[in-house]
């Protein structure tokens, strides 16, 4: 049997059902690997005791079922992004302002995971309030990517894992969580998946409940899984998704059997390749990977169609009005009165101002200020309303092309992982990381990043498949074929085990 931390959900499910391994064994192996990986700073809170108790309960349920039906994730150890509220377990959103916050309730998504039998290993580090593309804005410090540059360019510098779900991606890539929850507002699942050689899916807006997920930009936020394979991803999304009356934007749609969509057959599917995603100065290796992906799908019998999404270049500027505007409103609740940090002042206003000055980091402050500005009297029409109109044009672009094609293939990110500190001084160059992912958030569409190759420096690169709303099945079907063609088996060396 392979080392227990090296197997994925599907394989673990088989071993568990045959009784060849217990959830306690699986869970303990991951908790131990997690403790050995503390130098990566991927976790804000580790919960090994709770994990062991949940695993033991899972093993007992399985024994009781006596070979009968068990939950879809029965006994599977997961890491949870620290944006999901977990009952009585510290939930920080990577921010100082949520110091000590222990929610007295459970988010719908995590509740569904526990009901499906999953086990919680701990809470993962992330960019503060999910605002960032490198995990460097966390109050708890940056996460280190398990991957390092190899060959001539290799200098052992620590790289970012991407963000905002950098801790989740690192826990999965570093083999100390079998899979992890994540969230994606502009690319925060797909870009870190691309940077760490993992599979990350942002489903259709409304597929997973946002109830109990700390809000960043409510019209864009969506939860999804980060896993080691497309099959694992489909299994886990099935357990996370579903209608929730507690979220008024939750879609009242049946959840299909995503795993059954992995037929391995894409013959006759039309795959769009958008010309606007060819960027000036795009690294040659990204362009080459994209061409490789096109070739794989052609070989598998799909038809490639050149398409145009004419408003693509306006997606990021529109996003950087809409997301900060929604954030400035959502983050108004952090006022030092009801939960988290409080810094006293001589009167109520000063207490608010002192609390929020101390509690928010530089990037969060920047976005709250931008959001406040674009919503303020005299600027609302010029900025916020304008951005909402451009958002409609971007959405319409997709509706038009989905008349002609079944799905779209693009790179996931414009580069491989970069070094810690390399981009943190220039907000706009950091924002450009999401250039390929952000349109799917504005239009509410599902997208997945799968590891498809290595850069010249030996770092993972991802390809992204986008599909029409509520057609994750086609997305998974294509991702499965790409995964098989890419046969991506590279893994980072576990250098951190000796570094601690």
């Amino acid at each position, binding site marked *: 049997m392979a080392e227990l931390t090296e197997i994925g959900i599907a394989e673990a499910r088989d071993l568990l059902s045959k009784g060849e391994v217990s959830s306690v064994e699986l869970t303990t192996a991951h908790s131990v690997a997690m403790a050995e990986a503390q130098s990566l700073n991927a976790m804000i809170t580790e919960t090994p005791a709770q994990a062991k108790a949940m695993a033991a309960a899972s093993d007992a349920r399985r024994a009781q079922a006596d070979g009968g039906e068990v939950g879809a994730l029965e006994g599977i150890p997961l890491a949870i992004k620290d944006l999901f509220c977990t009952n009585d377990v510290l939930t920080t959103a990577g921010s100082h302002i949520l110091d000590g916050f222990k929610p007295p309730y459970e988010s719908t998504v995590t509740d569904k995971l526990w009901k499906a039998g999953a086990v919680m290993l701990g809470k993962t580090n992330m960019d503060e309030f999910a605002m960032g593309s490198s995990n460097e804005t966390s109050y708890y410090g940056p996460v280190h990517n398990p991957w390092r540059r190899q060959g001539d360019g290799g200098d052992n510098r620590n790289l970012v894992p991407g963000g905002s779900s950098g801790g989740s991606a690192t826990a999965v890539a570093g083999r100390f969580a079998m899979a992890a929850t994540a969230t994606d507002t502009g690319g925060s699942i797909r870009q870190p998946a691309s940077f760490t050689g993992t599979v990350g899916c942002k489903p259709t807006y409304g597929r997973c409940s946002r109830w109990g997920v700390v809000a960043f930009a409510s019209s864009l936020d969506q939860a999804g899984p980060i896993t080691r394979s497309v099959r694992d991803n489909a299994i886990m999304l099935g357990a996370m998704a579903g209608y929730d009356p507690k979220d008024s934007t939750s879609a009242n749609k049946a959840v299909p059997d995503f795993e059954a969509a992995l037929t391995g057959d894409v013959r006759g599917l039309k795959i769009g390749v958008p010309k606007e995603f060819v960027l000036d100065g795009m690294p040659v290796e990204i362009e080459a990977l994209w061409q490789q992906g096109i070739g794989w799908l052609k070989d598998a019998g799909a038809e490639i169609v050149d398409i145009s999404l004419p408003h693509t270049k306006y997606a990021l*500027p529109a996003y950087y009005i809409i997301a900060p505007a929604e954030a400035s409103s959502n983050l108004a609740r952090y006022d030092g009165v009801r939960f988290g940090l409080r810094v006293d002042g001589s009167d*109520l206003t000063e207490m608010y101002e002192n609390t929020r000055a101390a509690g928010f980091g530089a990037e969060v402050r920047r976005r709250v200020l931008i959001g406040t500005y674009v919503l303020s009297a005299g600027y609302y029409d010029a900025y916020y309303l304008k951005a909402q109109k451009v958002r409609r044009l971007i959405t319409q672009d997709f509706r038009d092309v989905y008349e002609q094609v079944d799905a779209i293939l693009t790179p996931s990110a414009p580069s491989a992982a970069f070094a810690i500190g390399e981009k943190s001084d220039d907000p706009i160059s950091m924002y450009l990381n999401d250039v390929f992912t952000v349109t799917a958030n504005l239009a509410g569409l599902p997208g997945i990043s799968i590891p498809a190759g290595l850069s010249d420096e030996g770092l993972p690169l991802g390809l992204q498949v986008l599909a029409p709303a509520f057609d994750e099945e086609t997305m998974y079907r294509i991702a499965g074929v790409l995964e098989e063609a890419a046969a991506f088996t590279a893994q980072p060396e576990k250098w951190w085990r000796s570094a601690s």
Partner: protein
Amino acid sequence: MSVDKATVARIAHLARIGVGEDELEPLAAELSGILNWIEQLNEVDTETVPPMASVHDEALRWRADVINDGGKQADVVANAPDGDNDGDGAFFTVPKVIE
């Protein structure tokens, strides 16, 4: 569009974030850089385009007007950073607002 120090001070107050005098100038430069980059949206003709607030076409659902939760006062105040000075744990507290 660029913003000046006075504008940054005004929006920081609107957002209730204390910003030191020495931080206003660098923040004005940062925010101006971002706003200038955003200006490219003006290239897009949106004269006849209705704004889009949500990807949902349909109206938001109504829920039944019934009590379906509650009686959790202790849970509600459990995370309050300034424990209730009266000692019964029943209230959020703030600095004195009314003289």
